[in-house]
C-alpha cells in the first residue's frame, strides 16, 4: 500500500513537470495561434492583436503560466482556438474514440501476442516457430504508417471488406438504428484496430515467448510433467499464469506508447481521436489544447508506469523492496 502511494506521489510530480515543460516548449516554438499567415495575410495585425488579447496570449509568459496553473486547479482547461470550443469538450469528444481504438487494439493484440508467444515457447526451435518469430519481427520493424497503408490497400481498396477511413459512414449513420450504428462504428474500427493489434501482438509475443522460456525449465514445471500432466496442461495451467507478470507490466507501459502510436494510425485512418487532435493542435499552435493533451498523456504515462510497477511488485515482492 505504501509502495502504491509512493508511486502515486511520484506520478503527480511527473505530471506537473510534464505540464510545465509542455507549456514552456509550446510557447517557445515560433509562431502562435494567430500568426501572420503566409498565404492569406487578410487577417490584419489589429485583428490578430485583438484575438491574442481575447485569449490572454498577449500577457507575459509567467503570468500566463500562473493563470494556467490556477485554471487547471479549478478544472478549467482553456479554449481550443482551432476547434473553437472548450478544450474539455474537444478532448471529451476525441478521448472515448481513442480509448475505443486503443482498448480494442491492446486487448486483441495482447491476447494474440500471448497466444503466439505461448505457442512459440511450446514449439521452440521448430521451423514453424522460427517462421512465426521472423514474421513478428518483420511486423514489429515495419513503420506503422506502412502497415496502415497496406491494410487500407488490401482490405479497403482491393477486397472492399472494410471502409478505409473515418469512424462512421456519414451518409447513412444517422438513419440507422442503435444496432446498425454500433455495427457501423465496428466496421470502421476494424482496420485501425487490427493495425494496432498487429503491432501490439508482435511486441507482446516476443516478450511473452522469453517469459515462457524462462518459466518452462523451472522445477515446478518439471514436477507437473512428472505428475503425468499433458504438455498442453503443463503449458496452459502452470507455465502461462506464471509468465503473465511480464506481459501485464508491459501492458501498463504500452498504454502511453499506444497513445503516441495511435496518432499515426489515427492520421492514416482519419480516426477522429486524440492522436489526430493533438497532431493538428501542435501544428496550429493551439496552446491550451496542446498542453491539456500533454498533461493527459503525461498522466497516462505516469499511471501506466505506476500500474506496471505495482503489478510487477505484486508478482515479485523483491521489486518493491528495491524501489
Amino acid at each position, binding site marked *: 500500500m505504501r509502495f502504491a502511494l509512493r508511486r502515486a506521489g511520484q506520478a503527480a510530480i511527473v505530471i506537473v513537470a510534464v505540464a510545465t515543460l509542455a507549456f514552456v516548449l509550446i510557447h517557445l516554438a515560433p509562431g502562435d495561434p494567430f*500568426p*501572420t499567415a503566409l*498565404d492569406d495575410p487578410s487577417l490584419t495585425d489589429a485583428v490578430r492583436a485583438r484575438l491574442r488579447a481575447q485569449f490572454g496570449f498577449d500577457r507575459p509568459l509567467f503570468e500566463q503560466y500562473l493563470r494556467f496553473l490556477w485554471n487547471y486547479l479549478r478544472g478549467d482547461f482553456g479554449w481550443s482556438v482551432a476547434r*473553437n470550443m472548450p478544450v474539455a469538450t474537444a478532448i471529451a469528444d476525441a478521448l472515448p474514440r481513442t480509448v475505443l481504438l486503443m482498448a480494442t487494439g491492446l486487448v486483441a493484440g495482447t491476447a494474440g501476442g500471448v497466444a503466439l508467444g505461448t505457442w512459440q515457447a511450446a514449439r521452440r526451435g521448430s521451423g514453424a516457430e522460427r517462421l512465426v518469430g521472423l514474421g513478428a519481427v518483420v511486423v514489429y520493424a515495419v513503420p506503422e504508417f506502412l502497415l496502415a497503408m497496406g491494410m*487500407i490497400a488490401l482490405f479497403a481498396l482491393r477486397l472492399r471488406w472494410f471502409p478505409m477511413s473515418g469512424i462512421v459512414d*456519414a451518409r447513412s449513420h444517422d438513419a440507422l438504428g442503435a444496432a446498425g450504428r454500433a455495427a457501423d462504428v465496428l466496421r470502421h474500427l476494424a482496420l485501425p484496430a487490427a493495425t494496432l493489434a498487429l503491432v501490439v501482438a508482435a511486441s507482446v509475443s516476443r516478450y511473452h515467448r522469453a517469459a515462457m522460456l524462462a518459466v518452462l525449465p523451472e522445477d515446478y514445471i518439471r514436477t507437473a510433467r512428472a505428475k503425468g500432466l499433458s504438455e498442453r496442461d503443463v503449458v496452459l495451467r502452470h507455465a502461462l499464469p506464471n509468465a503473465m507478470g511480464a506481459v501485464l507490466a508491459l501492458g501498463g507501459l504500452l498504454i502511453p506508447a499506444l497513445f503516441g502510436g495511435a496518432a499515426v494510425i489515427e492520421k492514416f485512418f482519419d480516426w477522429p481521436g486524440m492522436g489526430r487532435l493533438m497532431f493538428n493542435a501542435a501544428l496550429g499552435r493551439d496552446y491550451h489544447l496542446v498542453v491539456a493533451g500533454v498533461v493527459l498523456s503525461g498522466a497516462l504515462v505516469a499511471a501506466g508506469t505506476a500500474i506496471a510497477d505495482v503489478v510487477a511488485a505484486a508478482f515479485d515482492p523483491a521489486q518493491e523492496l528495491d524501489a
Partner: protein
Amino acid sequence: MRRTILHRLSIALVFAVAACRGEGTGAGGTLVVGIPAEPEKILPPLYNETMARAISEVVYDKLADIGPELNTVGDVGYAPRLAQRWEWSRDSLQIVFHLDPRARWHDGVPVRAEDVRFAWQVTVDTAVASPKASTLGDELDSVTVRDSLTAVAWYKRRTAEQFHQVVNNLIPLPAHLLAQVPRDSLATSAAARALVGSGPFRVVKWATGQSVELAADTAHYRGRPKLDRVIFLIVGETSTLLAKFYGGELDVVDNFPAGDVPELRKHADLRLTTLGSFSYNYIVFNLFDGASDRPHPVFGDRGVRRALTMALDRDAMVRNVFGDVVATGIGPLTHAQWSYDPSLTPIPFDTAAARKTLDSLGWRAGADGVRAKNGHKLAFSMIVPASSKARLQLAPLIQAQWKQVGAQLDVVSQEPRAIGPLMSKHAFDAIFGGLTASPSPSGVHDAWAVAPAPGSAYNVGRYVNAAFAAQVDSGIGATTVPAAKTHFRDAMRLIIGDAPAVWMYEPPNLLATGTRVQTPPLRRDAWWANLEQWSFAPGATPARAPAAKAP
C-alpha cells in the same frame, strides 16, 4: 425473432427505395464533399478560410451575389439574393436595399432590415475581431433601417467597387438569435456553432473532427434545392482523401492536387473542372537588408532582380511539376481576374542575357562558380513552407537554374507557423510565398502599393514605386471597366519590370467530381455558388457506399 427480421428487411427496403428515388431520378440525394480540414468558424463575420467560406455561403445568403463574369465594378451582373432590388442615391453615397419579403431564417423568422443593420454593427465591432471589419469599415459609414424590409447603406466614399465590397462583406445575421450574445465572446459562443442562416441549405449536424452536414431548406424563398443533403466530410490525409474519391465514397474533391490529375484522367467516371485561379505563388525578394533601411546587398539592385528572373525558365519548371493544368504567373494579378490584360508580357527566360546583365553590374564569377561583387557573394537563402509539396518540388529546380548564372541559393524549409514572425520582422532574403486574392483586383493595393503595416504579411519585401501605386489607385478609383483595366495594365507593366518578386505560378483551382453529379456552369471563384442547382444524373449509379461488399 421473425418480426425483427421482417422489421429490418422493411427498413432496408425503405432505404433502397429512398436511394433510388434520391440519386436515380435527378431529385434529392446526398452529395459528399471531401475537405482536408475542419472549418474553424462558419459564422459570416468570423470565417477566414476557403472551406469555411464555402459552407457559410450556402448557409447564409448575401444581399446580392456576383455574376458569372465576376465583375466587381458597379453592380452590373449582380443577382438579387436577400435583396430583391436596390437603388443608388444620386451621389452614389447611399444604396437602398429592398429585402425579399419571402426570405426566412432557418428557424422560420422573417429576414428583416434590422438583420442587415445588426450584421453591420457586429462586423465592424472591434470586439468581434472580424477579418472583414477593415474592408467594411473603410467603405461604410453606417446602415440604417427605413422600414422592416428596407435597409440603407451609407457610404463614406465613392469607389468603383463599393457595391461589391459591401454585399461581399455585409452578410445579414439573425439579430433575434445573436443580439444577446456578448460581442467579445461571439466567436466562442454556442451560437457560433448552432448556425441559423438564410441560405438554401441549413446546418443539421456539425460532428467535430468528422463532418458538417447540411440539409436542403425545403421552404427556401428561392426554391427548394435539388439535393437533399450535402455532407462536407473531413479527410485530413490527402492519400486517404484521394483513395476515397477514386473508391466512390466522395462525390466532390475541392482543390484537387495537380500532381494527381494524370491518375484522375484514367477514371472515366470522374471529371475535372479547372476554375479560375485567384491566387499566385511567388518568390518575394527582401529589397532591404533585414529590417534596416539599407538596400539588400543582392536584391536592392533592380538589375540583379531582373537578371535572376531572366535566369528562370518558369514555364518549363511549372510544366514539370504540375503538368498542363497550371498557368505561369504573370504578376500580382491573375489571369482569372477581370483586370488581366493579355498584352502583358513577363521578363523572358534568357540565361545568356541574365549572365550578361550580371556581368555588366559587376558581379564576377569566382573559382567556385559563385559570383561576387565588392567582396559580397551572390548568395542568399529562400524560405519555403514545409507544407507546400509543390513549392518544395520547385525549389531545387530554381536552385539549379540560378546556379547556372552564378547565384548560390540556400533553400530553407520552414513550418508555416514559423514563417510568419520572420516575415513580420523582414528577417529573410527571399520567401517562396503565396497570396490568395479575389475577383477584385483592388487587393493589389495593400499587397504591393503601400508600405507594410507593422506585423503585416503584405508587401514584406517593402517594394516602393510611386508610379505603380498611382496607377493602382487610379485603377481602383476608375468607374468603368475599360478605364480601370488600362490603369491596372500600366501598373502591372511597372511592377513586372521592377521585379520585386518572381511570379512563379497561379495555383490551380481544380474541382474533381463524379460524372454522376450534374452541375450548372460553375462560378470560377466559388464552385459552390449555385449548389442548390446541383443534382445527380437521372439513372446514375449512386455513389458506392463504403464497404459495399460484405466480408
